[in-house]
């Protein structure tokens, strides 16, 4: 019977390749990490499921007119989804701790060293003939070190769309692994005495400062680095809606329905780049390795800047909060708090670590702006 033949040749059992099976396994692992281990579940569950759908053989869902491919074309290629997420992040972010202690911005700056060191690493692998990355690709890989999902997706979508799947998976995986990656480095680079340092309580921040801050940041971006304006502009817009107090209904929708809807389709769209033929590649493996290096270097440079700042500052600064400068909001700040508590049970660093934590978001958006301007 022809029809039975057609069903059989159309079936997954007939068409599936070993690579696709492997990718189904990888995606199930991502779902396991998201659901059971609770690692960045909002993204690992959506990306993982998108990856499952994309590796079903013989069905047009992550290609052509399929829903996931449409989401990719309309949301990621245009940059719309990461920018809207950034608006939502702005609406969810309290810049109060940063306003109370602006010098923690330097911690967020230092931690971006991971980005550029990784870029250099990727180019080094190319120089050695092990890999073959262009400057654009190396820049996109480096941004994993920014430890900020939407920034990584935005930059990869602009500079190296064919690597977006690997870069997004690496970024979210390492952000999830922050509680495992960071503590050993923190203990290696700080003394017990440094970890015990208690910090003075943050001052209260006025409403006016909160409202003016996103405008000041935007104007600085406009004057100094316009290529960072899309990312930081949307962040500032979201934050202005949050703080200005007169558009609470817009701010609420941005923090809830809108960011949730976009997260769902962003995750599925990123998942559509996990197709076996694109993802199973040596470059993916090296991206995962380089991403790990990026995180470690970013953490280390944040800590070292923390030690320096502690020496220079009049008020004591616990170097641990420098590790939060990599972003990975709010996980990195929680890790800094936890390691601080281990050394000194009276030491509540959480709010102090939120300053460098959000500074890291700004820092990596600035780095992204430079990458996009120079590499494109």
């Amino acid at each position: 019977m022809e029809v039975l033949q057609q069903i059989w040749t159309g079936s997954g059992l007939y068409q599936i390749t070993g690579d696709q099976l492997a990718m189904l396994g990888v995606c199930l692992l991502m779902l396991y990490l998201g659901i059971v281990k609770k690692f960045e579940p909002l993204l690992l569950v959506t990306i993982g499921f998108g990856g499952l759908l994309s590796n079903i053989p013989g069905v047009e869902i992550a290609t052509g007119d399929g829903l996931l491919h449409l989401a990719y074309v309309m949301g990621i290629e245009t940059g719309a989804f990461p920018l809207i997420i950034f608006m939502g992040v702005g609406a969810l972010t309290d810049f109060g701790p940063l306003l109370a202690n602006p010098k923690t911005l330097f911690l967020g700056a230092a931690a971006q060293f991971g980005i550029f060191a990784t870029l250099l690493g990727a180019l080094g692998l190319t120089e050695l003939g092990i890999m073959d990355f262009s400057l654009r690709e190396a820049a996109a890989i480096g941004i994993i070190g920014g430890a900020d999902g939407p920034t990584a997706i935005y930059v990869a979508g602009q500079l190296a769309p064919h690597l977006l799947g690997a870069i997004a998976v690496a970024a979210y995986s390492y952000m999830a692994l922050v509680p495992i990656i960071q503590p050993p480095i923190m203990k290696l680079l700080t003394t017990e005495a440094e970890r015990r340092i208690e910090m003075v309580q943050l001052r209260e921040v006025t409403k006016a400062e909160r409202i003016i801050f996103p405008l000041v940041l935007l104007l600085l971006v406009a004057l100094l680095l316009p290529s960072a304006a899309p990312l930081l502009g949307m962040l500032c817009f979201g934050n202005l809606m949050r703080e200005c107090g007169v558009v609470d209904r817009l701010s609420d929708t941005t923090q809830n329905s809108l960011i949730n809807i976009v997260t769902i389709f962003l995750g599925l769209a990123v998942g559509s780049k996990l197709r076996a033929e694109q993802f199973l590649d040596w470059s993916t493996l090296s991206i995962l390795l380089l991403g790990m290096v990026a995180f470690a270097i970013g953490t280390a440079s944040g800590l070292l800047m923390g030690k320096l700042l502690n020496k220079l500052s009049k008020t004591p600064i616990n170097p641990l909060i420098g590790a939060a400068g990599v972003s990975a909001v709010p996980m990195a700040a929680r890790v800094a708090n936890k390691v601080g508590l281990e050394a000194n049970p009276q030491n509540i660093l959480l709010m102090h670590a939120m300053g460098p934590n959000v500074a890291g978001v700004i820092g990596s958006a600035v780095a992204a702006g430079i990458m996009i301007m120079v590499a494109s």
Partner: protein
Amino acid sequence: METSLLDQGVTLMIVGMGTVFVFLAMLVLAMLTMSAIAIRFSSEASGDGASDEEVAAISAAIAQHRKR
């Protein structure tokens, strides 16, 4: 002479970290200036001769009010 890819990378690293630091340093300056003005303005708005305690109290009250 063509610059090698690695040289471009080193340049980008130096310029990039430089820009990040310069940008964030200027943001620190801008924030300190802005906060100074905002707090001064708040204290003036709240009556003549507001003492430091009054400023602190107002700040706290505003913060309290924000916790809706």
